[in-house]
């Protein structure tokens, strides 16, 4: 069993006893978590526990008042979002983040907006098309006319363009039908197996989130209360009763 206090020295992302929130009010009251390279880690918890706040805090949208965040052997506490993106964390936000009236191709090109090397842009897009043949088929389609699941794939594909060391996802299942959600999670798992993608996801859909991840954290009232391998959390009677709808 991993001891949360004795943090793995090889962790890619390490959030240590972080306090953060809005104005003078802390939503997160000492959250600690870490993500190892090649892992899918899922944060679950009830509404209002601070799941989205975790996302915003790591991504630099909210100020860390106490504690610290390290990524890839660098302290990134209170860095600006742009700098955090550059350090190798790609994000897939909960809200739709495609450009609806641009084609799939244009959306991907926008994903490499800061890249000037045309050859590299071409290569990266080819790479994403290899991972998501569906996107290649639809490259001339307006993103806004695709289904919710396809748009989510496009968002994930676009995040991968930048060769991130980790992808941070806020509710990948948000607004999607159960079957589509499953397809998205399967894809995340597949990317993890195929290219060793490291993922931290914040997920409302606790059961599926845990099913497709290696480790999980339960967040309650701004603190992480349970953690461990996802299979164990799925089997833990207390976690089941509180977050997985009993049974």
């Amino acid at each position, binding site marked *: 069993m991993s001891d949360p206090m004795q943090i793995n020295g090889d962790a890619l992302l390490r959030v240590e006893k972080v306090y953060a929130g809005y104005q003078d009010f802390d939503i997160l009251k000492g959250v600690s978590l870490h993500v190892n390279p090649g892992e899918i880690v899922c944060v679950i918890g009830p509404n209002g526990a601070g799941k989205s706040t975790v996302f915003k805090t790591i991504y630099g949208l909210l100020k860390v008042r106490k504690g610290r965040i390290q990524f890839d052997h660098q302290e990134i506490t209170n860095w600006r979002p742009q700098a955090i993106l550059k350090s190798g964390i790609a994000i897939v936000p909960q*809200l*739709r983040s495609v*450009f609806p009236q641009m084609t799939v191709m244009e959306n991907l*090109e926008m994903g*490499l907006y800061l890249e000037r090397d045309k050859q590299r842009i071409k290569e990266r897009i080819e790479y994403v098309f290899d991972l998501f043949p569906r996107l290649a088929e639809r490259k001339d389609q307006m993103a806004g006319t695709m289904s919710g699941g396809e748009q989510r794939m496009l968002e994930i594909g676009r995040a991968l363009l930048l060769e991130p060391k980790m992808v941070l996802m806020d509710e990948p299942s948000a607004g999607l039908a159960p079957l589509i959600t499953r397809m998205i999670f399967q894809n995340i798992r597949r990317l993890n197996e195929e290219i060793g993608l490291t993922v931290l996801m914040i997920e409302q859909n606790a059961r599926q989130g845990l099913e497709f991840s290696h480790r999980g954290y339960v967040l309650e009232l701004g603190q992480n209360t349970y953690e461990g391998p996802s299979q164990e959390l799925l089997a833990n009677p207390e976690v089941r009763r509180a977050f997985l709808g009993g049974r």
Partner: protein
Amino acid sequence: MELLLQALFNGILLGGYYAVMVLGFSIIWGVMGVINLAHGEFLMIGAYGAWVLFRVFGIDPFLSLAIIMPVMFGVGYVLQRVLINRVVERPHLISLLVTFGLSIALANLFNVIFTADPRTVPVSYNGSFNILGMTVPIVKTMILGLALLIMFALHVFLQRTRLGRSIRAAAQNKNAARIVGVEVGRVYAITFGIAIALTAAAGAMISPVAPIFPFMGPPFTLKAFTITALGGLGRIPGALLGGMVLGLVETLLATFVPGVGTNVGIAASFVLLVLVLILRPQGLLQGLRPMEVE
């Protein structure tokens, strides 16, 4: 029949002008969700710019665009940076108030500087010639040509350049634009600069054929509303279509409805606006981004 053809032709000339006149208004609304109530005043400034350059330096109003557009781009850029960017994320009412205040301040400033006397730019070629029995006014035809050219150039800029694409990205999904590294504040300032330059250009173009006075702006702002409602936000084809519809309706009404004269424009514009809002609130064409209900 001849009367009808002439009216249609005049309507198209007017419509082309309306289309280029509305571009700035439509872009600002479509890209950053700000309704620029000072739109007509920037047009007025462009017209005065052309008048001053003509009077003092003898520069032709069409050539003066080469000076007016870069200068007004700078004005727009700075204005966005120091003023509009502060209110762009706030509720609509705030930006309405700010631009309304700007419109009053600008109109009165120009009233103080230039007095309320109407000015004209009497270019030597302001005449007309006949083709197949139709009267073709020279300046207005030049305006139409230039309007089409400007729209084409803007279209190419938005579709084909990196900067143009970042403007479209910011318009369609501001947060996503930020995620991929677009500096939205800067893009907004450039957009505002371009929009103000285009609006001032429209003012300079019309200076040979319309009286220039400090309070000439509001009717243009009102018509810009109608055209935008007709054509949708930020779309160049939409601006062209909306402008043409309004131009044709105005001209046909003035020609065939006895007693209404040429001042029917504003009334026609509002009737159209109400009709569009009732029948097709999303505009005749799809916009640069979907109209949002807020």
